[in-house]
């Protein structure tokens, strides 16, 4: 692990986003504390060496300059993967055209018709644990809920859920890059079968929408189709699961906050923004497109920039009293869904899933606590998550 010659020593911070000690419990608090003591743009030798953008405003500025900070793997060879996932691993104008195919489906109006089905699924999962008086939230509920919704949207068989969840887990959490790449190839093989089926017999589902998509007045090619469908699967598989798990652990440990929501369920949407602000689960990367001097450092073409969007909402330069969780904040400013053109396509769906789930849970289980002592253990990686959240309530 060496530091490139253009990186000054005072810009080096020992931050390992996969296996660092800070990620093992209370990661948001511990990583935000580390970042507050670090330069706004720092370098770590871990994970093959990369820069880290540690401040929200700097991140926001950089994420709206795709000409300088590219999402294409040609500028970030460490992120080269097969298939190239799309549209996230592309820049405008390619990105704009591909995104246009799916923007309508995932818009607030586009996903509204899914709400009754999402609510029915939430009810089913909650009623499945209700009379037990307890559950392990991550495996009993969180890993099932958003995945099933996604499988239904994509017209894929629900029996495939455990297999797909395991692949996603390897892709986001394995510290070995070769293992992550192999997991991606396994996923692509599975999805190609779905794509081939929908080419042959289109249906009214998300995979068919992509398969019939057009850019530049022509149909998508094979690589574009597998790239898009792969990303759509990865996006929906463990981000919402992790977020919900963090939220439930928080509410279990903070009965006062929980009571605010049971007293007034109309607070739930803004509570979700505030809970998301302090429990982000995912970040993003970019590659530097040319040698430049930026934000006080020399960057070289091909340098990797990691944006831990998980914790920009805890940036004390950006948010007042960021460690205080207050559901009645006028605005819960954060970037957990990213910033700029690549803002998370699934953000509206994610919010709806979380809102509906909390509404249904709190209606039936208004008071609950954690069944274990001590801090919740967590995992780092591309998506941060609690390892387990044992809950119990009066049954």
């Amino acid at each position, binding site marked *: 692990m060496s530091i490139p010659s253009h990186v000054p020593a005072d810009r080096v911070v020992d931050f390992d986003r996969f296996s660092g000690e800070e990620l093992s419990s209370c990661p948001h608090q511990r990583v935000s504390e580390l970042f507050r003591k670090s330069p706004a743009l720092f370098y770590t030798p871990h994970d093959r060496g990369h820069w880290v953008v540690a401040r929200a405003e700097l991140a926001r500025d950089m994420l709206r300059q795709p000409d300088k900070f590219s999402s294409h793997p040609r500028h970030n060879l460490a992120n080269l993967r097969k298939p190239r996932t799309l549209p996230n691993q592309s820049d405008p104008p390619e990105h704009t055209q591909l995104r246009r195919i799916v923007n*309508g489906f995932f818009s607030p109006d586009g996903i509204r018709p899914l709400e009754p089905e999402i609510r029915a699924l939430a009810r089913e999962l909650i009623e499945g644990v209700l009379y037990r008086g307890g559950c392990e939230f991550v495996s009993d509920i969180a890993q099932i809920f958003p995945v099933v919704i996604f499988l239904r949207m994509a017209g894929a068989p629900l029996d495939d859920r455990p297999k797909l969840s395991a692949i996603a887990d390897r892709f986001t959490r394995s510290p070995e890059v070769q293992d992550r790449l192999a997991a991606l190839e396994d996923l692509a093989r599975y999805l190609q079968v779905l794509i081939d089926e929908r080419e042959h017999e289109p249906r009214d589902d998300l995979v068919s929408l992509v398969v019939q998509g057009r850019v530049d007045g022509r149909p998508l090619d094979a690589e574009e189709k597998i790239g898009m469908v792969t990303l759509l699967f990865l996006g929906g598989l463990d981000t919402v699961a992790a977020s919900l798990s963090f939220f439930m652990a928080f509410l279990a440990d903070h009965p006062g906050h929980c009571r605010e929501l049971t007293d007034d369920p109309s607070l739930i949407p803004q509570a979700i923004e505030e809970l998301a602000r302090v429990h982000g689960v995912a970040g993003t990367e970019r590659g530097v497109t040319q040698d430049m001097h930026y934000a006080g450092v020399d960057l070289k073409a091909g340098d990797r920039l990691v944006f831990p969007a998980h914790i920009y909402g805890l940036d004390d330069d950006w948010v007042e009293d960021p460690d205080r969780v207050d559901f009645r904040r006028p605005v819960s400013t954060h970037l957990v869904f990213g910033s700029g053109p690549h803002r998370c396509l699934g953000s509206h769906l994610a919010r709806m899933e979380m809102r509906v789930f909390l509404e249904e849970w709190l209606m039936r289980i208004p008071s609950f606590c954690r069944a274990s002592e001590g801090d919740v253990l967590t995992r780092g990686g591309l998506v941060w998550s609690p390892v387990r959240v044992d809950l119990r309530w009066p049954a």
Partner: protein
Amino acid sequence: MGLRIRVDTTICAGHALCAAREPWVYALDADGYCSSDGVMVPPGLEDQARRGARSCPEGAITLWHEEESSGA
């Protein structure tokens, strides 16, 4: 006198928090991006317009005081 909404559509990223927070002031297009650029805030909804503008994480929304043109 009125308040006019300006949305920098080159930086609107479709978070849609403006419309989620203040649906009486802010509207979205079919793709979920803000379509309120150039719209006058309905009288009496100025506070809501400000809250909606503040909820944009990109800082894409600004509000401008304008004299309304008087009719004939």
